[in-house]
């Protein structure tokens, strides 16, 4: 172990301060979200804000533990962590506790632990380890396939737990692959297929095909009309139409009504306003009613009246939006954007490619959570139940995000000693 002074002098305090600013803002919001007059002490540990405070304190211990750990541990045992995580995910499938239809919790005493949360940092470590190996290049097919496997194994297991939201988070690692040299075409193709998939479920398949054809005709006007180019455009059109038609067919013929419903809710076409659509509508009202300055701390009416469901977990941003208005929104977006840009800056200054790749892994996970969580409360992204990092109530998610981020901070602090 290196000397204590060394470690702390090399820590990037900007990122640490951003972290604590977010965690404490989140805590204040949880207090506001579940506030009631009977239990007004903010330290009451029978209440959720009291519990969150305990978890924040535990996070500080976790942080110290990470700081005193030799950085070599993270790269040397990257695959080990990953393998253990995969085993835990399998055992939670077999022995886990079922909560609201998904088998994704472990009960230790009266503490519920959600292994899926911790699988994220383990996957980021494994991916970093693999991609930083000498001679691995993402321009080779073999490397791409192995990387995809590293990502998809935990994602698949989490999907089997019926926790679609957490499984989707793993798709964000494609950003890491892109940064490390995966051809941009993959990114664009993947994105297009995803968009087509959603479009064909949202609209009548015929309209989508007509729209695609219109798009193709327009494209033909703008490109050089060589035989090869025309063939290419038509080929893409046929392929895209085939995807649209097969998605629709598969949706109607291979899926049971339950699965159809789940997908409908996921992409936000659930007609039931009491269901997922209802949550978004309530959440928009709450945020909208905050105005520019907000209603003031503990003055929110919409979140107070329990109109917004899950307001201290997935919809925590509503409380912020309602009580602190646009100023509050600006603060949250600002804090996250600041964190993301700082992570990029730190990642790019790493001498070790392991640390850099891991940094981008951290970025991907946090960015995905941020995009989807806030996007869903303002009706821009589908309702996928994933928490807002550092803000949402919950021990598992707070600890997992803390570990994810602070391993990176630890790796960065070590950078000065690496020559």
């Amino acid at each position, binding site marked *: 172990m290196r000397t204590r002074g060394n470690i702390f002098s090399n820590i990037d305090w900007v990122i640490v301060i951003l972290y604590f600013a977010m965690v404490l803002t989140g805590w204040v919001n949880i207090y506001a979200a579940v506030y009631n007059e009977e239990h007004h002490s903010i330290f009451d540990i029978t209440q959720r804000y009291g519990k969150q405070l305990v978890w924040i304190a535990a996070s500080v211990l976790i942080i110290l533990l990470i700081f005193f750990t030799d950085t070599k541990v993270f790269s040397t045992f990257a695959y080990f962590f990953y393998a253990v995580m995969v085993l835990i995910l399998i055992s939670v499938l077999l022995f886990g506790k079922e909560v609201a239809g998904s088998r994704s919790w472990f009960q230790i005493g009266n503490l519920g632990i959600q292994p899926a949360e911790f699988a994220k940092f383990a996957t980021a470590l494994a991916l970093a380890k693999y991609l930083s190996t000498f001679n691995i290049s993402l321009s080779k097919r073999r490397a791409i396939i192995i990387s995809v496997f590293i990502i998809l194994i935990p994602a698949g297991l989490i999907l089997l737990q019926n926790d679609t939201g957490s499984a989707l988070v793993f798709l964000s690692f494609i950003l890491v692959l892109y940064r490390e040299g995966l051809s941009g075409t993959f990114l664009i193709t993947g994105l297009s297929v995803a968009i087509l998939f959603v479009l064909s479920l949202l609209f009548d398949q015929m309209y989508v095909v007509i729209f695609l054809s219109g798009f193709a005709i327009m494209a033909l006007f703008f490109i050089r009309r060589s035989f090869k180019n025309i063939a290419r455009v038509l080929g893409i059109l046929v392929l895209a139409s085939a995807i649209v038609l097969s998605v629709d067919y598969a949706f109607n013929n291979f899926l049971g009504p339950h699965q159809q419903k789940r997908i409908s809710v996921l992409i936000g076409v659930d007609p039931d306003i009491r269901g997922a659509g209802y949550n978004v509508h309530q959440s928009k009202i709450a945020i*909208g009613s905050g*105005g520019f300055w907000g209603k003031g701390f503990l003055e929110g*009416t919409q979140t107070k009246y329990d109109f917004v469901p899950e307001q201290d977990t997935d919809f925590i941003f509503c409380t912020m939006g309602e009580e602190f208005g*646009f100023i509050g929104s600006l603060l949250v977006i600002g804090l996250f954007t600041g964190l993301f840009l700082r992570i990029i800056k730190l990642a790019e200054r790493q001498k070790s490619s392991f640390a850099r790749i891991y940094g981008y892994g951290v970025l991907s996970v946090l960015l995905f959570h941020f995009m989807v969580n806030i996007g869903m409360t*303002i009706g821009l992204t589908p309702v996928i139940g994933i928490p807002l990092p550092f803000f949402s109530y919950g021990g598992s998610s707070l600890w997992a995000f803390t570990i994810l981020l602070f391993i990176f901070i630890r790796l960065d602090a070590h950078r000065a000693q690496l020559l």
Partner: protein
Amino acid sequence: MASKKSYHTRKYVITGFIILIAFTYLVRLFILQVPNNSYKLSAQNNVLRHITLYPSRGLIYDRNNTLLVYNEAAYDLLVIPAQVSKFDTSYFCSLLRISQEAFNRRFQKALRHSRYRPSIFLEQISKEDFAYLEENLFKFPGFYFQSRTLREYPLELAAHTLGFIGEVDHNNISKEPYYDQGDYIGKSGIEKSYEHILRGRKGSTIKIVDVFNREQGSFEDGHFDTIPLPGSNVTITMDASLQAYGEMLMENKKGSIVAIEPSSGDILTLVTSPSYDPNLLVGRVRSHNYEKLLKDSLRPLMNRATMGTYSPGSTFKILNALIGLQESVLYPETQYHCSGPESRPIRCTHYHQTPLQLKGAIMHSCNPYFWNVFRSIFNQPGFQDNISNAYTVWRDHVTSFGFGKKFETDIPFEMKGNIPLASVYDRIYGKERWTALTIRSLAIGQGEILVTPLQMANFSAILANRGYYYPPHFLKEYTLDGNKVEAQYGKQYSSVIPENFDVIIEAMQDVIGSEHGTAHWVRIPGLTFCGKTGTVENPHGKDHSMFIAFAPKEDPAIALCVIVENAGYGSTWAAPIASLMIEKYITGDINRTWMEQRILESNLMHDQ
């Protein structure tokens, strides 16, 4: 590492992407939060009130479009405890006509539910009270009205069939998220079976309410509102006038009447007695009355027609005869003596000439004859060695007539009855240690077998149809999006071919038509009707009187089963009631007023 190509310029693409997302979200938030008029909402310290708009529940009609159930407007008073400020509680209590204690209790209950969410404070306030209360509501911030509907039953009949509605429980809510606390749901009968058709779809509206508890209009011009969708109307197969007549005949008697239209399986009448006025289970008095009915020693809440299980008695002899005919061990000409060693296990209880052929045996309900029929079914060549197999063949015939199972259509609280499996007898007597003789009481409809009046009525319908039935049901049609949807039911065949019914039906006609028939006195001039009496042994008291019948013989319009508990012989009470029901249904009128009078004036409830 030098060997790898560096992609560090891609950090600019990623940074750009992040800034783009942040910018998009900020623009979206700005649009949502700043120019939006809900800003005013917070400035005036107004609150939004989410009001559920309850749809009117579908109406229920009988087969002749007589209205059976409709809605009456009523109002619930809701409270949001957090919005309540100091007010004159004694004045408030006097307005609502409740005591101060009741006020405290209800307010505490609301507080326990949620400080911020509305709770029902006082439910189902009548239109008249509502008009007066509403004028004074501004003095009581935090309280507001929500319109609801109450069920009304203009004819006060068929309480068990129609069922009732009540507030949803935790179970309902967790099973179907559509429901919220305070919603109503069909708890029994048609109301329960067709809940999804009748309930419609709730709507919701968001109102802006100022500090003086006044609604300032819709939030966002009603953009977030949804209109409630009224429930669909349901037409049931019941004939209300026949039902009313049946209930009248069964007054002061314990028992039931089930009448079915054989050609469709429509249940025309389902009377269980004693019953209760369906209006008793409506509104605020519901739980009080329900408790009272529940404690009543006559058990008016039990539907005897579908839940009461009885030995079928002599009526079951017909089924044994049909099985014998189908198995070719019995012919219409087969004769058995009423005395001698053959008849010993079950003695004859009637005086008649002997030996008898099948028709005469049914008419006189001769016990030894049917013991011999039963025995010959089990002693067929090939069966003698294996009682289990023989019994299973017999049992399959019986269950093909709808016994020993539920119809599972839309009949509330059906019981299966009991037609034991061969294994049950194996357990009682030991494997292959029993014979036809051991279970001989089944020959005359006694022993372990149990049937419901509904199953007996259906049996009667099978006889009328010569071999088939439609599962008995209540739903005729309902309206969906303005279109009438007719209920469809699949035809079921019994295991006996139509030709084998001929002699049975002739015999059943003689039961009434012949001067020597056991129910000759209940004949209806100008109408051929077929029936069979039954006296059901009752280990707990006086025997039950049972009668199954259908009419007219040529083109049956009605088939029924009547059971009068603790009333003795089938011919004395059940037969005349069945006869009057048939006369009422087919001719629409009663000519034999003396018979009607006798039934109406009899009270069979006390002498048990």
